[in-house]
């Protein structure tokens, strides 16, 4: 067995061991933080190693497991695409392994079941790794549902809160629907391929109509998991209520596993591309991106905000994938692989910064037990490291250079700008519109994270418990530091990263991006140096040089002193914490401009004594337009059906008689 696969197996074994030893945590709570969580981190490390080895070697290793159905044994395969996602999962899992012990320690005295936390976290990681590793539909589905199910238990971890239970229910329901859609999609592929192994599906030739049906099913399934609008409603409910490191895993990694699945099925298994598919993916991606960020802006719960922002980022990834599909459908292999790499790059970026931000939110929660932005403020001075790392996360997610989010958005823009190479005028004009949406998304994301960071970390504390916040223990800081460093590394050395990722595109599409790294590690030139170039290393060098120079000159200059005083605030009395701008107020202009897209209930309640209270509820429109009608339909159908069980035995006998008569009538 090859090194990569061995390491992968090792990672899965470690995750399972972590899960198994956690069973003992009911008796000995320390097991979780002493053993289970470090094992999880090691599993992540092993997965990371497996991924990197595979990416560097670029080979494909496959083997069969002695499990599964007799005629359908479980097969695993580690190819560059899987390796890439192993890397991604590995890094975040490492961070979670660092973060977990501190969290576990905090709840050791609580009523929550530590064993459940440990067991399902281990299974969750196992499931994700197995999904990526699976080489037949059966194992894929088993691993997929294992992933959904174990994360469901983690979402329901703090189940004393009714809202958490509802969120968990919705989550599992949607995951179930999605899983079944994927299963049906595989069914279509298997019907033409003659088997559930991925190898037979790869060679199957599907007619357009059937491959389109498979595409729709698969897109539905993975899109549901990825939280694409309008199937996203579960995501902002479920992700925030899990423990924060689990939210980091869910948002950072599990959504990427959905992306993986989509890439695997569409790019690898179906292997044919039609512009109609590409355009629909592009459209859904664009809608998700814009809606996700707008809803994120409206949130005052930090973790909900992050969850909605995941919808946005997944939208961006799917924009990349849609572009790739459009380009590939028209035979532009290089452009297709550029867009694919942009999507992959954004996947890993999002894993890093969303993981970082969720861990940061978790650190705030750990320190202040507060998730409402309106109660926060001034945390930067209380928790400087978390503040710094969170800032890096915010900068990255807002796609600001020289951080990683910018690189992937830049790549996406670059591939979108190559739309002039397409022959069809319709596509040529649709793609720039998607690019415009992407631009709008980026700008709104910046607004969103200015709000998040500004309200939470800057200004003054808006409540007493937040004022008393303490820095979090080392493990939490280290986990954030790791991911923050990754954000910076991925942002500063894009050319080197792409040199690694390139092998994925080469293996999937048979075409890579030779031009991208042709100019060395310093320059990123996706198409050609004349078309576009970006040098993150130089940028960061110049930025810091410039800042140092300016600071140096000013300091040498006339006055060095800085006097501390009360805030001026245009001469009003020194501002109190209650006079600060609130999160709601911050979002108000954008809420007003984009008001149509929200379901807003706003009113002023006059209470006695002339006190006026402002009430504002911003709801997701998807509820009213999609979810509520379906729920109502099922409910009313159920209401009708139960009339069968009327309680009167004569009616029951009447049913028997009429069934008999009808059947007799049918057969003769």
């Amino acid at each position, binding site marked *: 067995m090859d090194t990569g696969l061995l390491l992968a197996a090792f990672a899965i074994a470690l995750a399972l061991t972590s899960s198994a030893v956690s069973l003992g945590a009911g008796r000995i709570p320390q097991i979780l933080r002493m053993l289970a969580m470090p094992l999880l981190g090691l599993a992540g490390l092993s997965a990371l190693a497996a991924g990197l080895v595979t990416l560097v070697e670029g080979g494909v290793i496959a083997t069969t497991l002695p499990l599964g159905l007799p005629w359908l044994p479980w097969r695993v395969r580690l190819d560059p695409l899987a390796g890439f996602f192993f890397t991604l999962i590995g890094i975040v899992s490492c961070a979670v392994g660092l973060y977990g012990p501190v969290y576990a320690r905090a709840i050791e005295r609580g009523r929550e079941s530590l064993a459940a936390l440990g067991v399902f976290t281990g299974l969750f990681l196992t499931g994700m790794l197995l999904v990526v590793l699976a080489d037949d539909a059966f194992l894929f589905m088993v691993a997929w549902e294992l992933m959904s199910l174990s994360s469901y238990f983690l979402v329901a971890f703090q189940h004393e809160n009714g809202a958490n239970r509802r969120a968990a229910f919705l989550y599992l329901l949607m995951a179930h629907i999605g899983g079944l859609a994927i299963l049906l999609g595989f069914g279509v592929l298997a019907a033409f391929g003659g088997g559930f192994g991925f190898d037979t599906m790869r060679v199957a030739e599907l007619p357009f109509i059937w491959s389109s049906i498979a595409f729709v099913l698969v897109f539905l399934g993975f899109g549901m998991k990825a939280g694409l609008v309008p199937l996203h409603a579960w995501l902002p409910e479920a992700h925030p209520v899990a423990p924060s490191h689990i939210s980091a895993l869910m948002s950072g990694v599990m959504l990427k596993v959905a992306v993986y699945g989509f890439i695997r099925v569409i790019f690898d298994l179906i292997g044919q591309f039609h512009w109609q598919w590409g355009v629909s993916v592009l459209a859904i991606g664009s809608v998700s991106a814009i809606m996700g960020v707008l809803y994120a802006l409206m949130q005052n719960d930090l973790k909900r905000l992050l969850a909605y922002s995941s919808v946005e980022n997944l939208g961006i990834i799917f924009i990349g994938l849609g572009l790739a599909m459009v380009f590939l459908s028209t035979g532009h292999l290089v452009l297709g692989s550029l867009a694919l790499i942009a999507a992959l790059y954004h996947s890993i970026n999002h894993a890093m910064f969303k993981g970082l931000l969720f861990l940061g939110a978790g650190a705030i929660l750990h320190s202040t037990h507060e998730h409402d932005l309106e109660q926060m403020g001034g945390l930067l001075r209380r928790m400087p490291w978390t503040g710094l790392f969170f800032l890096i996360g915010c900068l990255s997610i807002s796609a600001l250079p020289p951080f990683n989010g910018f690189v992937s958005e830049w790549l996406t823009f670059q591939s979108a700008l190559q739309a002039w190479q397409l022959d069809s005028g319709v596509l040529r004009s649709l793609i720039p519109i998607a690019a415009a949406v992407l631009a709008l998304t980026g700008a709104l994301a910046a607004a969103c994270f200015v709000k998040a960071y500004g309200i939470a970390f800057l200004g003054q504390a808006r409540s007493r418990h937040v004022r008393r916040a303490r820095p979090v223990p080392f493990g939490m800081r280290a986990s954030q530091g790791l991911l923050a460093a990754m954000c910076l590394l991925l942002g500063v050395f894009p050319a080197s990263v792409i040199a690694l990722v390139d092998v994925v595109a080469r293996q999937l599409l048979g075409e890579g991006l030779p031009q991208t790294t042709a100019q060395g590690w310093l320059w990123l030139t996706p198409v050609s140096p004349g078309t576009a170039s970006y040098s993150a290393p130089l940028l960061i060098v110049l930025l810091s040089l410039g800042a140092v120079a300016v600071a140096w000159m000013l300091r040498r200059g006339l006055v060095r002193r800085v006097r501390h005083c009360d805030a001026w605030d245009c001469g009003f009395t020194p501002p109190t914490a209650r006079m600060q701008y609130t999160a709601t107020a911050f979002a108000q202009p954008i809420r007003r401009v984009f008001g149509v897209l929200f379901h807003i209930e706003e009113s002023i309640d006059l209470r006695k004594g002339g006190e006026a209270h402002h009430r504002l509820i911003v709801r997701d429109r998807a509820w009213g337009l999609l979810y509520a009608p379906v729920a109502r339909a099922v409910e009313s159908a159920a209401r009708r059906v139960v009339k069968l069980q009327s309680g009167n035995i004569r009616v029951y006998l*009447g049913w028997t008689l009429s069934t008999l008569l009808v059947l007799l009538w049918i057969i003769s």
Partner: protein
Amino acid sequence: MIFTSLSLLQQLVLMLAALVLFTSFALLAQARLVSAIHVFAWQGALVAAVTFVVAMTSHSHHLYFSGALTLLLKALLIPWMLHRLTRRLELDRHVQSLDRPALIMMAAVAMVVFSYWLVLPMIQQEQIFTRNIVAISLSVLLIGLLTMVFRQQAVVQVLGFMSMENGLFLAAVSATSGMPMVVELGVAFDVLVAMVLFGVFFFQIRESIDSLDVDRLNRLTETVEDGN
């Protein structure tokens, strides 16, 4: 089919079968409980008679036995048990007529026609006779079920159930010259045990709802609205 071409015994069988069918109708419409039990006893006797006639025609000995069993069980034992039960339950003066007798009778007639229509495609190798007898027994079966659907009284429901069994016996005897012995014995045993259990349940029901009106057995239902 030309009726006259049949042998006399066959004519007799058909005659008796027609009477069985008639008793089914009677059972359906009979308002007085005690009379219904009598009608049922007559039906059992008629089925037993059919069995004997068929046994005579086919010279099969085990049919005699089966006929005796039917006579004993359906015409004597079960009616007797029911009689006793009704007396002990103080139901011997119970009268309850059908709600819409004309309509229900029409339905029962429709059942007969339907049964006949059903068996028409059976192109029997030997006898059209058997086909018609199957139609009759099918009608008896369906009318028995109809009785159970339209009569609220638990005892009458049981009568309906037993009359369905009679239909079955009729079919078994006349169309197939009786089932294998072990089966017949088993069926008879089951019927007997069922009758005993019915008796037990009459008392239990009576104890729990103070009546034997099955319409009042309606606690177990799903149709109660939420938040009742």
